[in-house]
């Protein structure tokens, strides 16, 4: 089944790319933006049909490789 993970920078970590994107949006006329934080999205197809086991597996991947927990948070999203 497919499991997705979203990795985002923690709140107190500087995100210069997000800041530049925000400024660019602003200059394009999107003036209602409070903040932009850039992150990463992974779609992982695992050989596992049990949703709980698949989710646990991807969570383990996030902890060990996909995210660096000093600066990033992860969120697992079940897809199908």
């Amino acid at each position, binding site marked *: 089944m497919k499991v997705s993970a979203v990795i985002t920078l923690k709140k107190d970590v500087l995100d210069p790319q997000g800041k530049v994107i925000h400024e660019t949006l602003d200059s394009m006329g999107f003036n209602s933006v409070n903040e932009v934080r850039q992150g990463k999205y992974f779609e992982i197809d695992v050989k596992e049909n049990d949703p709980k086991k698949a989710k646990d597996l991807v969570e383990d991947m996030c902890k060990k490789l996909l995210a*660096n927990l*000093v600066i990033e948070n992860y969120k697992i999203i079940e897809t199908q």
Partner: protein
Amino acid sequence: MKSSVITFPGSNCDRDMDVALTKFGFKNKMIWHNDQELPKSDLIVLPGGFSYGDYLRCGSMASKSKIMHSVINFAKSGGLVMGICNGFQILVESKLVPGVLLRNKYLQFICKNVHVKVDNKENIFFKNLDKKVLEFHIAHNEGNYFCTNDQLKEIEDNNQIAIYYCDQNGNTNDQMNPNGSIKNIAGIFNKEKNVLGMMPHPERMIDESLSGEDGSIFFKNLLNNIK
């Protein structure tokens, strides 16, 4: 004295490091990342470059390569490990030294000479060094050292900050901070101080006619300390 330089796919300072180590008297071996075992070494160096094209996060893929199991065991048993630039990024991703290296504050690749202040000489890397300020070269896009407040307190309490970005007189301030690193940190140790990670490249400062000699001073001193 024997040294080993690990080459990862995308390393590009490995041969420069080999030249530097050999010039100052190390018997150096080049080790491929896919090897499992390290030869007997007094010093292991993780060189600069762009291992695995900086995919995911700089150093993250290399930190999981086969040879790193041996490097981690070597470091944990007290062996000397030095990571320069991308090597420093691999060390933080391997959790051999605390913190992370974020994208430079102003989103620019920085390539220039900098001065660094050596504060802590109670370790094998900088013991007996005559100079307090060294001129090294930096070339990186992700050298903005960051750690949590708890980690910062711990590394300060344990004297783990190795070098700071500074001016030529050793003054550390925001103006002399090229990349936004916390506290102008350019290099740090692990708790035991047998692992050193730093962004500047001493191996680029070993020829008076091409660069400067402060790298020579660093390597000569390191060799004497290891002997």
